């Protein structure tokens, strides 16, 4: 605080000459105005917070919808699938649990639960040759099969790894799941049962159609 100026004044303030300044009603008016302003500010802030909340809800919903649109259900979504396992003359059945089967703009993603405590098996198949190179699975070709009045498309993929012994072929129908796994050491899996007798018939016809086309089923 700096220096001050000191004055001596003769004028004495008395209650009478302060009457003109004493005005409680005016003070109350100011106070009411202040209260109204404060209330308006509070309402504005609450509205702002509410709007932000609603907008964030809308944003989350839209985002979720977009996410769902990005991963559309392809075929069967979940369930216990039974495969016929063949290795030369030896046959067996094996049960695999399908966890999801979804499609994005460029890929199909099929997930099976890992067996014997192993991690889940995730297959990422390109939709067409343009999308090759994004995963280790390479699109080879496809075959249209008409059953009744419905046309099914079966897509063929190769698990494209450098060592030929580790290569495998997959025949995938987006409306079902993987129809055939074919490994390089002659261990093959054919989808047999998806838990629905009528659909199983279609499934068997599809597999027969693949087997009957040597150009397509070559591996």
């Amino acid at each position, binding site marked *: 605080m700096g220096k001050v100026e000191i004055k*001596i004044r003769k004028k004495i*303030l008395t209650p009478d000459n302060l009457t003109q300044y004493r005005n409680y009603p005016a003070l109350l008016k100011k*106070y009411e105005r202040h209260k109204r302003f404060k209330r308006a500010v509070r309402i504005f802030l609450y509205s702002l917070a509410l709007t932000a909340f609603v907008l964030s809800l809308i944003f989350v919903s839209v985002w979720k919808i977009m996410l769902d649109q990005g991963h559309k259900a392809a075929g069967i979504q979940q369930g216990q699938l039974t495969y016929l396992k063949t290795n030369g003359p030896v046959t067996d059945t094996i049960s695999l649990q399908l966890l999801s089967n979804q499609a994005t703009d460029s890929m199909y993603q099929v997930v099976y639960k890992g067996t014997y405590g192993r991690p889940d098996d995730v297959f990422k198949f390109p939709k067409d040759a343009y999308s090759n190179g994004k995963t280790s699975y390479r699109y080879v070709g496809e075959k249209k099969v008409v059953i009744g009045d419905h046309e099914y498309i079966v897509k063929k993929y190769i698990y494209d790894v450098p060592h030929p012994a580790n290569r495998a072929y997959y025949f995938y129908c987006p409306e079902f799941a993987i129809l055939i796994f074919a490994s390089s050491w002659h261990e093959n899996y054919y989808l047999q049962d998806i838990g629905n007798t009528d659909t199983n018939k279609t499934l068997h016809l599809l597999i027969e159609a693949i087997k009957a086309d040597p150009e397509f089923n070559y591996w």
Partner: protein
Amino acid sequence: MSEQEIREEYIILEKSRTNPDAFGLLYKKYFDRIFGFIYRQTDDEDVAADLCSQTFLNALKSADKFTFRGVPVSAWFYKIASNEVNRYYRSRKSSKTFSLEENVIRNLYEQANDGWDEEMIEQLLGYLVELPAEMLEVLNLRFFEDKDFKEIAFILDITESGAKMRTYRALDSLRKNFKLKIKYDGKG
């Protein structure tokens, strides 16, 4: 002011939180004193009127924040008024003006000296001008507003011993050099 009176005023202030009309009693009671306190530090009636009005408005706005600390409600008004005055000078960036009532100075002076001595009064003003503003604030509250040290401490946000020390230093020299009869023992 007795403890009972202090509590009664506090009850009025509590009422004014829900009923602003109740605050009118305190306004009526303390308006003149707060006006005088501000006027002494501004030397301008219009400015004092504005700041006084703002002081009571601020007090009413924050009536719900006032907590009982054993000092009269008026001490809280003085505190707000003091802040308003400081804010006023900060915004104007000008030095503070204290205008002291001649009759009060004259009374004090003539009690200890033979008659009114203009030259001595000039010396007194010269002495006061040299005092730091915070000491003048303490003198103003102690000398013109008759506040005890507890209230001064509350108003200026300092400790009670700090208020005593400042008053003692400022008044000791006045008493010695100008023979003014100003008490600083805190008993009024």
